[in-house]
């Protein structure tokens, strides 16, 4: 017998109410139930960070949370970053600095680093690397990602 619950979640500002199986992870809820496939699943056990979304503002791994646990909460995913087709400054810097190749890791990295810069608007390179440590990228070698994040921060401080 399926254990079902009806949950109400706000995702990228839009309220949703859905019946979900309680074993449904937040990642699968976003991807399969809401068809928000921008959140990627690399490992499903908390190792790669591709699934990172923000719950109540905090960057968390959506493969390690159940959808029922977000009942009444707000969730932000990569789909909510660009508004009306206009990329965020960080997304633009990823483009400029070649911060992505295949793009599989990118949604998780954008969600993580957006949160990080809100907390630390003037980070050192080593702080950026530390904040990035929970996200695996198999393409870029990270250098271009670090450059993009540092450039975003500099731009926000009016230095570029």
């Amino acid at each position: 017998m399926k254990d079902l619950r009806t949950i109400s979640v706000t995702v990228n500002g839009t309220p949703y109410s859905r019946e979900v199986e309680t074993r449904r992870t937040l990642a699968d809820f976003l991807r399969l139930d809401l068809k928000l496939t921008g959140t990627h699943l690399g490992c499903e056990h908390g190792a790669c960070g591709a699934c990172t979304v923000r719950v109540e503002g905090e960057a968390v791994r959506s493969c390690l949370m159940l959808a029922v646990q977000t009942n009444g909460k707000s969730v932000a995913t990569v789909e909510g970053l660009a508004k009306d087709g206009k990329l965020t400054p960080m997304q633009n810097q990823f483009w400029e600095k070649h911060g992505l190749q295949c793009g599989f890791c990118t949604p998780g990295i954008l969600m993580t680093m957006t949160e990080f810069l809100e907390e630390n608007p003037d980070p050192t390179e080593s702080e950026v690397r530390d904040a990035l440590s929970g996200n695996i990228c198999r393409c870029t070698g990270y250098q271009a990602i670090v450059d993009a994040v540092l450039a975003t921060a500099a731009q926000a401080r009016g230095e570029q």
Partner: protein
Amino acid sequence: MKPSPFTYHAPTTTAELTELLGTLDDVRIIAGGQSLMPMMNFRFVQPGHLIDLNTVGGLAYVDVQRDFIEIGASTRQRFLQRSQDIAKHMPIVGEALSHVGHRQTRARGTIGGSLCHFDPSAELVNMAALHDAVLTLTSVDGDRSISFGEFGLGFLTTSVQPNEFLRSVRLARWPEGHGYGFEEFAMRHGDFAICAVSCLMTLDDRGAIDRLAVAVSGVSETPVRLTEMEGRLRGTMPDAGTATDLAAAAGDIEAMSDAYITSDYRSHLARVITRRAFTKATERADQRVRA
């Protein structure tokens, strides 16, 4: 993979929680979920009932008392990392937390979850050993408090009974100005430690060791306190010779081996890292402090 089916419970009070624990079989409690969810996704663990600790109120707090700091089981690792009280009175905990997973996992992971999971290399398990933790377990019959030694039985195994949950942990405070050092070696930062060593120290007005605590993790199935050496080094000057004695004691712990790390290598790391933690604690210890 995905978790196998379970029945989900979201109690809002500790009374509801203990009631559920007292009546249901085949239960797992989920706190931050940063260890349990991977195990459920892998189907290493397939509980019939999953009880969510996140909906229970009043279990996330840091309460500074004269002799100890009491931390509620649901307190997130990130909260502890940002806590001014922890930074001021127990700075080594912040240092240890910087090695726990990554920012996304610390946002969810809790101290109670880390302790109950009882990974022998976990930094917070090491902190509990180092600070002579007293753990409060709660069931329908009320509370009982046990020492860290009674709590941790072995690899991923604690003495928490099926009808109980961990409510809070008390970590013994050290005097202001005590020296502290946490050192660890892992394949990558944020990975499970192969070996981690923590050290607390106070010096008397001559600069000799007045009180010392050293906890070595990752070498055997539970963190090991170097109790005998801690006592023996009292009154000695914290110099290279003392560090060598301490390192030797860490190297004498019977070390585990697995497919990747031999016991010889673990013992070697235990010696090297113990020396580093001790040296750091010595540098930071304020000479006027008396325990």
